């Protein structure tokens, strides 16, 4: 065997388990979902009626789907850059040779362990009409009367965004930290000799060297935000209210898949549309944030 063929053989061998799992537990069910998306389905009654692309046509003209898409896009555009920036900044700060580094790391890691029900509950306390957030804002004179953050059409989605950023930053920060370990110290030393300041080191050395991981963080952020469901579901008890303010795409899918019986076909249609949107956005984002491919 030539070394080329050997490499191909090993490369393929390394990934065979992934292909198997991918096929059985993703491709097969996805194919099934796609078939459902072409039907009107009541799985319980066992009625499957082929309707072609009617569900897709319906989705394109469904005002609730439009609202959900706009809400979701707004969510992605605000949350993804914010959480990525905070995660990177905190990781760099942690990695800059400070004292008590281990302590800080552990403290920052703990929120990823806090149960989501506890987070939601604290959040509800914090942002209640008579809660500390309002006390503070009123006390400082930013607002005159307390705001009903979670129930007010203007603030509901923003409140969920804050909750999300708060909960996910530690995860991405931990990943950035691991990546920063791999940036060779020699690069920083050379830069110091050239008289570079901290900001220059950050922009000229750190950020370019973690581009692949930034790609990962951005893409996972995009995917996670496009699929945002938990917080919207909890805050609106599943309705997407008030007045569709927290209606996200995943919430709409869930409503048709599980809250109403007999609309599974439409749910499948929406899921496939969402997956397509996320995939396209991911590819575009990847291209924009050029990764040196090293192939």
């Amino acid at each position: 065997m030539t070394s080329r063929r050997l490499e191909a053989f090993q490369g393929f061998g390394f990934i065979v388990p992934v292909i198997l799992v991918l096929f059985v537990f993703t491709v097969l069910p996805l194919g099934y979902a796609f078939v459902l998306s072409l039907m009107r389905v009541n799985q319980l009654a066992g009625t499957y009626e082929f309707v072609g692309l009617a569900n897709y046509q319906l989705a394109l003209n469904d005002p609730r789907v439009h609202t959900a898409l706009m809400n979701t896009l707004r969510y992605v555009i605000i949350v993804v850059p914010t959480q990525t920036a905070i995660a990177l900044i905190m990781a760099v700060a942690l990695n800059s040779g400070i004292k008590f580094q281990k302590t800080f790391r552990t403290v920052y890691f703990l929120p990823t362990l806090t149960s989501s029900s506890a987070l939601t509950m604290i959040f509800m306390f914090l942002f209640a009409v008579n809660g500390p957030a309002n006390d503070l804002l009123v006390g400082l004179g930013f607002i005159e009367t307390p705001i009903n953050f979670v129930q007010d059409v203007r603030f509901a989605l923003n409140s969920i965004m804050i909750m999300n950023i708060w909960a996910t930053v530690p995860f991405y920060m931990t990943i950035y930290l691991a990546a920063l370990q791999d940036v060779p110290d020699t690069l920083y030393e050379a830069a110091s000799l050239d008289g570079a300041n901290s900001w220059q080191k950050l922009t000229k050395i750190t950020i370019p060297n973690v581009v692949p991981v930034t790609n990962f963080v951005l893409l996972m952020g995009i995917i996670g935000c496009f699929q945002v469901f938990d917080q919207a579901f909890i805050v609106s008890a599943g309705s997407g209210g008030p007045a569709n303010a927290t209606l996200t795409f995943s919430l709409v899918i869930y409503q048709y898949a599980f809250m109403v019986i007999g609309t599974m076909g439409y749910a499948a249609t929406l899921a496939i549309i969402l997956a397509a949107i996320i995939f396209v956005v991911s590819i575009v984002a990847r291209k924009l944030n050029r990764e040196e491919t090293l192939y």
Partner: protein
Amino acid sequence: MKKIARLITLIALPVMLSFFAACNDNGGGTAASGDADRPFAGQTISLGLWPGNDNEEAGMAAAIEEFYELTGITVELRHYHDYQVQLQAELVGGIAPDVFYMEAFLFPSLVETGVLYPLDGFMGSDFDANDFFAPALNAFRHDGGIYGLPKDMSTLGLIYNIDLLAAAGFTPSDIPNNIVDFAAFVEQVHNNSAAGVNAFVSSSELARHLFLLEANGTSVADADGFAVLSQPNQHPTLQLLMDGFHAGIVGRPADLGYGWSGDAMGLGNTVFIIEGNWVIGHLNMNFSELNYGTREIPLIEGANRSMLFTVAYSMNSASNNKEAAWEFINFITGTQGMYTWTDIARVLPTRASVADATGFANDPILAPFVAAGAYATPWQKGETLPIIMREYNNFLPLVIAGEMTIVEAMQQAEEAANRDIDALMR
């Protein structure tokens, strides 16, 4: 040799596994070794339910034990932690249990599909259907057949904090017994109460408002299942409630930082709530010092009204053990089984005779909730209710915030719901 042995194992193993799986699917029923008195002794049936609190778990265990003594049938429990998703998956997969909890709200969607087995055929001429509170039993009727017997029920009642009422200069006997006067009374209580005390805390969603909307006889769903929410005669009592919100007299639990009204009551932060009887156990357990009383909701449009939430035992159409399954349903919703279950679990029986036997019907705190069983509106309105509920809950906050009138918001809710119902369910 070794290779051949391994090959055989490779081929034989899946076959064996599928054989075992098939055995499991049958899940008993074959080993019938009954006698004349107990024809199904030795059989096993499966029961799908969600886990309850400690009292409910104890009540269920005791009832199942009694049933086993009586019939020799073993009941195997399967727990649902996300009832709607799990039950749907099991029914689609053909592995749902013989008997399962059937929420009234979900009932119309399921019975339409044929997955529930009608129980009328099992009921002998001596079956006393009239002992059940009519609204509870009727929630499980479909096309003239009965597809579930209600295990217990919850109704809404008025709960008041006696100390806070006294602080405002009133006694419980001052509470008026019709909703219009009651609204004015709540305002007085509000004016007389200390700052930080709420006169009335109310969760605002369709599950709590359905009976208000229908008080003048207009259903929220028409004969074809389309939403009807914007008719003026649906709104008088709702308007009173919304006026209360706008005047700052009524608050939602979430606005005040509470998970639900029961916590606001328990913490002594509200004089009145309208809640289900599940709040009683909660108050007694977690807020034992609270001095509170209960009564029926004041008359609305001249009549007693409330909401009724109920769950039945239904039989799986695909069950292989229908006879034994019926034995269980008949026992646990019969006078003996229901007594054991409700007495230990402290939940409201759906049989009037059991409500008397447990003493709940005469218990000063529980009696108003039992009484409502006779007249309350079940939380069940056909298969389109999930969509109607979704849009009602979606748009009502705009009315509470004062951004829309009831009619404006309800027209939008109605339109959104009906667009969906028309496109997907008709």
